[in-house]
């Protein structure tokens, strides 16, 4: 049928007009209503372009942290376990980037997946690598579940508005990778 249409110029012109006309109409009809594009923060979900799901967790060594209270800062949430080799491999790079950028507004939350680790092992890990950023403890696995954790390590880079801008599944992340993701977000206006 296509070849028949194609051989006849007039038929082809008609086909072009119909196809493009329908395309224009469909494009117009499927516009996104203004209300849905200016409606504030995107819904929470653990993927780029969505708001980071909120959590409140106890910290290793005492205290608590709530993600939503860090709004206005660039937050890097790294989920890890002490027995995970790539987690061990990338931790020095995370610590280094944290130290050089924390005064610019970077917060690192090294969420230990305690439900599949132990607090004692986590504490030994933190001492071994000299980690200075907060270590929230996911004892029940609820936060890992909320973030649809599928492999360790997994890292979420969250902008100052609380929106996830990048997700890195697996590792180890290089220092250049961490720095590039963090610097992009830090350059955004507070």
């Amino acid at each position: 049928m296509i070849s028949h249409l194609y051989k006849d110029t007039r038929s082809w012109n008609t086909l072009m007009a119909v196809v493009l006309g329908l395309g224009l109409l469909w494009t117009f009809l499927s516009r996104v209503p203004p209300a849905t594009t200016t409606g504030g923060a995107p819904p929470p979900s653990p993927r780029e372009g969505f708001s980071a799901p909120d959590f409140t967790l106890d910290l290793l060594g005492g205290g608590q942290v709530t993600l939503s209270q860090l709004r206005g800062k660039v937050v890097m949430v790294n989920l890890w376990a002490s027995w995970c080799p790539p987690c061990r491999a990338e931790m020095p790079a995370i610590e280094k980037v944290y130290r050089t950028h924390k005064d610019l507004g970077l917060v690192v939350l090294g969420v230990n997946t305690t439900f599949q680790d132990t607090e004692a092992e986590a504490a030994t890990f933190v001492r071994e690598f000299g980690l200075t950023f907060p270590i929230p403890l996911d004892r029940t696995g609820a936060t890992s579940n909320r973030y649809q954790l599928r492999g360790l390590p997994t890292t979420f880079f969250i902008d100052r508005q609380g929106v996830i801008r990048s997700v890195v599944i697996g590792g180890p992340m290089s220092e250049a990778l961490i720095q590039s993701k963090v610097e992009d977000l830090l350059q955004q206006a507070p």
Partner: protein
Amino acid sequence: MFPFLRLGPFLLQLPGLALLAGVWLGSSLAEKEAARINVETPHVASLPAAIYNLIFYGLIAGIVGARLTYAARYLSAYLANPLSLFALTPNTLWPGAGLVIGIAVAALYGRRKGLPFRPTLDALAPALAAFMAALGVAHFLSGDAFGAPAYGPGSVALPWAIYLWDDYRHPTQIYETLAALAVLFITLKRPLAQPGEGLNFLLVVALSAAARVFLEAFRGDSVIWAGGFRAAQVIALFVLAASLWLMRVRAQPTTLSAVET
């Protein structure tokens, strides 16, 4: 969504594997199509082999280019850690720049080897359609290119909706895969002419653009332009118009010679 497969300490990135499979399938189809076209190529011993090399060099140049341009954007980070250039991660690639560089290198290779322009495009037509299908599968595995929430009357989720990213959504990755497979099927039927005139390639572009115009309406991650228009739809509409017009020009020998001169 199955973004990776754990093999011992390694995480195998399944979307990347799907894309590689698409390149492999596309290369095979392109070689077969080039053999069918069977045109004189004075500068190369065999058109199929040259087409395979063109895809290979374009792919390598695209990947290397995507990494180098990403590193150039964050020069200080990479100057401090030059070994990071070799990191096996897709997170430090600039895909847009890689695509442009890959196409440029493939074009340079084709020009240097004196590959005939239209037969080469026709040989690449099924490869392009196969790669689009693989891209749909990669999107399904990664959860990218996801759909808009899919609810019917009474706020009941549509029966074919999938639960992804905390909502029932149109399975746009499946839509785009099926559309690309349909385009591939049509392309392999060669409905317009014998391959070698550049028409099959234009047909793939036109059909893919038409599919994008239609399916973009169901996407939940569209880039929105002023007036609420979806950027991909508007661009695809222009591509569709251009490819249909070029096909019309190709159908008229007198007009074609005027354009060529």
